[in-house]
C-alpha cells in the first residue's frame, strides 16, 4: 500500500523562507498508528527523497491531529533567483508513492 492510499492529507508549505514543511495526516488512529509503527517515514527516507543529509531532516509526531510533521531546509531561499516554488506548496508529491508495509 502507498502512503497516498492511506493518508487524508499530504501537503507541503514553507515555514519561513528557509524551511519546507511536509504534513501527512490520517483519518483514523488506526491508520496513523500503522504508519508510525511501520517506521517507514524516517529521516533516511526523507533525506533520500529530497536529496539531503539525514541529520537535516526533522520529524515530529503529532497524535492529536493524527499527523506527522516533517521539516527540511530549502536548498534555495524562497524567491531567490533560480527558485522554482516560492511558497513551497508543490514539494509533497514524492511522498505519495512511499510504500507502507
Amino acid at each position: 500500500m502507498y502512503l497516498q492510499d492511506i493518508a487524508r492529507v499530504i501537503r507541503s508549505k514553507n515555514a519561513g523562507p528557509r524551511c519546507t514543511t511536509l504534513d501527512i495526516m490520517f483519518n483514523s488512529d488506526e491508520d496513523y498508528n500503522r504508519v508510525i509503527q511501520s517506521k517507514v517515514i524516517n529521516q533516511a527516507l526523507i533525506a533520500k527523497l529530497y536529496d539531503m543529509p539525514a541529520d537535516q531532516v526533522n520529524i515530529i509526531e503529532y497524535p492529536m491531529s493524527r499527523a506527522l510533521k516533517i521539516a527540511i531546509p530549502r536548498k534555495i531561499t524562497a524567491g531567490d533567483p533560480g527558485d522554482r516554488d516560492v511558497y513551497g506548496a508543490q514539494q509533497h508529491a514524492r511522498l505519495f508513492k512511499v510504500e507502507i508495509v
Partner: protein
Amino acid sequence: MSATGRILKEFAGLKTRRPLKLLGASGQLGYGIPTPAFQAGLERKPDLIGCDMGSIDIGPYYLGSGNMATARESTKRDLRKVLIAARLHDIPLVIGSAGSAGGAPHLEQTLAIVREIAKEGGLHFRLGVIAGDIPKDIIIDAIRAQGVVGIDGMPALTEDDVLGAAHIVGQMGMSSFEQAFKADIDVLITGRACDTAIFSTLPVMLGFPIGLSVHLAKIIECASLCCLPGGRDSILATLDDESFVLESMAPQRRATPTSVAAHSLYEQNDPYVIIEPEGRAVLNEAKYEQIDERRTRISGAQWLEAPQITIKIEGSTRVGERAILLCGAADPIFIKNHEEILRDVTKVVRDLVCEDAPEDYTLFWRVFGVNGVTDPLPDAVTPSEICMTIECIAPTTARASEVVRTMKQYLLHFGYEGRLSTGGNLAFAFTPPEISVGTAYKFSVYHIMTTARLSELFQLKIEEL
C-alpha cells in the same frame, strides 16, 4: 471615549472578568472578506475585530519594491467593510502587517486608502499607527554587539547586507500593540507585526492568561482556515480564564478538535510551540474538546516568558532587472534533447550579446513537464509537451530584454542534432512572448535581533480622522 478606552475601563470596573469575544475577520485582508460570515460575526457583538494583512510567504518582491500584493480596489473594499463595521459598533479594529509586507511604503498606501474611506464615508475616529521599519543603524549596532542571529541557517548578517537592503522590517509584538491600546484609539494599523499580537494584546491587557491568548490568536488570525472545510470566512473566539471556544461564522465550516489541532501544523516547523518576541506558548498540554458539531473548546496552552525581547527582522535586496520568455514545445526529439539544446543555445547567445559587453547577467530556465517545479523522480515519464520559462536577471531592463530576445530567436531556429522540424522549435501562445517583469529581489535579512535600542523601535503615532 475611544473604543479601546471603553473596553479597558469596563474591565477595570468588573469584579470578575466576563468572557471576551474576538472576531477574526480576515487572514489576508485585500483578497476579499465574505460578507455573510462577517455580518454573522458582528451580530454576535464581538469586542474586537482583527485582520492580518501580511506574510513573508509571498516572497521578497513586495518587501523590496514597496508594492502591495493585493489589488488596490479589493483592498479598499475589505478595509471599507471592516472600518464601517468597527465604527458602527464602536469596537476596536486592529490591522497588522499593512500592505502585504509591512514596510513604510506598504503602510503609507494602506493609510492613504483608509483616509480616503473615512473621507468618503464621513467616518471620524482616532487612528493609531505603528511603523514596522527597523532603522539600519540600530541593526548595525546590534550586529556589532553580536545580537543578530540567522534563522534556519541564514548566513551571518553583514553591515553591507544591511546597507544594501531596500527595506528592512521587524515583527513587532504585544508590547508594541499595548502602547497603542493605552493611547485611547479606535483603529490600530501597524507595519510588519506578529500575526498573533493583533488578537492577543487586548486579552492579555485585560488579565486573561497569556498562553491561551496567544494560542487563540495564532488560530484566528487565519480566519476559518482551522475548520473543516477550511476557508476565508470570519471566525469568532470566546475567551474566558480557563479556555476559549472557536466557532466559524460560516455555517458550513466546523471547528472540530482534530481540525483545530491540525492548524498548529500549518506553516510552522514545530506544532507544539508558538514563538513570540516576549516568550513562547507551549502547546504540549493543549486540550481540544468538542462542544457540538461546529464548536471546539481549547485549553492548556502554557506561556514561558523569554529572558529578553527579541525581534524577527526581514529584509529584501535588489538583485537586478528581470525579463522572461514563455514558450512551449511538442516535438519529441526537441523534448528528448532539450537540456543539451538549451545549453548550446545559451553559448550562442553569450557569444552574441557579450561581443562588446561583459557577461553581466544570469540566465535560468525552468522546463515545466520535466523539472520546472521539483527534481524529477526516477520513474518520471517523458511528457508529450513542455512549457519553458527562460529568465534573465541583468543590471538593466534593456540588457535583460536583449538577452531573452536573443535567446528566443536562436532557440526558435537552433539546428539541433537529429532535427526533422525545420520550421521553428518553439510554440508561442501570444506575441510578444518575452516580457520585462520588473526588478528582482531576494531576502537578504531573515534574522533574530536583540537590541539595546528597543525603545526606539515601533513608535506610535496618532491621527485624528
